[in-house]
């Protein structure tokens, strides 16, 4: 650890974070499990969805904002489930009202129910509207380096390419594109979606990503709290390996012990 920079911080919109793992709050068994998994993950930025209140029912159902208090975490409302720019923008405005003027949002505008791939033209439209309206946008996009650059130029505070379809757990399907996006970027690049296990998270970080956002990989593990801890370590290991700089790949062996001084000839 002594060789590592003492303060390796992720900066999102000027705010420093020591954790590079961002987590979602969906698909958990209950609020207690949600809370424990988030704690084990060490995440400091937590995303959640906006939905209609259950009117007249489940009055004593625990509230997500109690499990994830805004004074402890940076809350990241998302537009999951929006298939057009207008509903995504409305969702962000409701979220800002819900959180008393909080401007940071995760924008996703989906284009296809089967793959949940983003609708890029609609995402561009929503991004422009939201930025004009004062939002700080972290945008979910595909792994296209040209689009990633476009979102950066529009003023997104982070660009979040998918590594594989949302909830698929297929891992980093196109590492060369993710690396190209990272190389070209002047804003944080976070892999959002597709990670299945801790080694996937490490691979994303070894490609130079600034962080990873995940939900299903933790929530659908047999033991979500243990997987959250594994993901934390995977992210840290991948980050340190990236900072350390890996050895070159060789086609043939390179002996680890010296040849000189052997007592046999």
């Amino acid at each position, binding site marked *: 650890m002594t060789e590592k920079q003492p303060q390796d911080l992720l900066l999102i919109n000027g705010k420093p974070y020591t954790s590079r793992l961002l987590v*979602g709050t*969906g698909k958990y068994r209950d609020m207690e499990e949600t809370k424990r998994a988030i704690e084990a993950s060490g995440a400091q930025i937590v995303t959640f969805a906006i939905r209609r209140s259950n009117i007249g029912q489940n009055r004593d159902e625990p509230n997500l904002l109690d499990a994830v208090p805004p004074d402890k975490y940076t809350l990241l409302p998302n537009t999951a489930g929006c298939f057009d720019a207008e509903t995504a923008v409305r969702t962000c*405005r409701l979220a800002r009202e819900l959180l008393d003027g909080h401007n940071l949002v995760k924008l996703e505008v989906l284009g296809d129910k089967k793959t949940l791939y983003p609708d890029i033209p609609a995402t561009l439209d929503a991004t422009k509207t939201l930025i004009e309206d004062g939002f700080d946008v972290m945008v979910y996009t595909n792994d296209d380096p040209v689009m990633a650059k476009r979102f950066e130029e529009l003023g997104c505070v982070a660009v979040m390419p998918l590594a594989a379809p949302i909830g698929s757990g297929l891992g980093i399907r196109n590492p060369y594109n993710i690396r190209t996006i990272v190389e070209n970027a002047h804003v944080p690049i976070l892999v959002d979606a597709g990670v299945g296990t801790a080694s996937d998270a490490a691979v994303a970080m070894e490609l130079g990503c600034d962080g990873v956002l995940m939900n299903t990989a933790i929530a659908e593990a047999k033991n979500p709290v243990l997987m959250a801890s594994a993901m934390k370590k995977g992210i840290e290991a991948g980050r340190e390996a990236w900072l350390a700089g890996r050895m070159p790949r060789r086609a043939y062996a390179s002996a680890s012990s010296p040849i000189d001084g052997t007592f046999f000839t």
Partner: protein
Amino acid sequence: MQVFINGKQTELPSGTSVQNLIEQFDIRDKVAVEINEEIVSRSRFELHTLEDGDRVEIVRAIGGG
């Protein structure tokens, strides 16, 4: 008057405010309210009265990724 609350048609006495609605339905979660696709800020819940045909959306934070 008839209003639509989270998509459900509901009969309410005229002059009902957003605050009355929150109390009537015993909504304890922190919520945000939109009427006819316009945000009604929390500070205006008492003052803002509903009108016939209004489409009210009351939303909250839930688990999601």
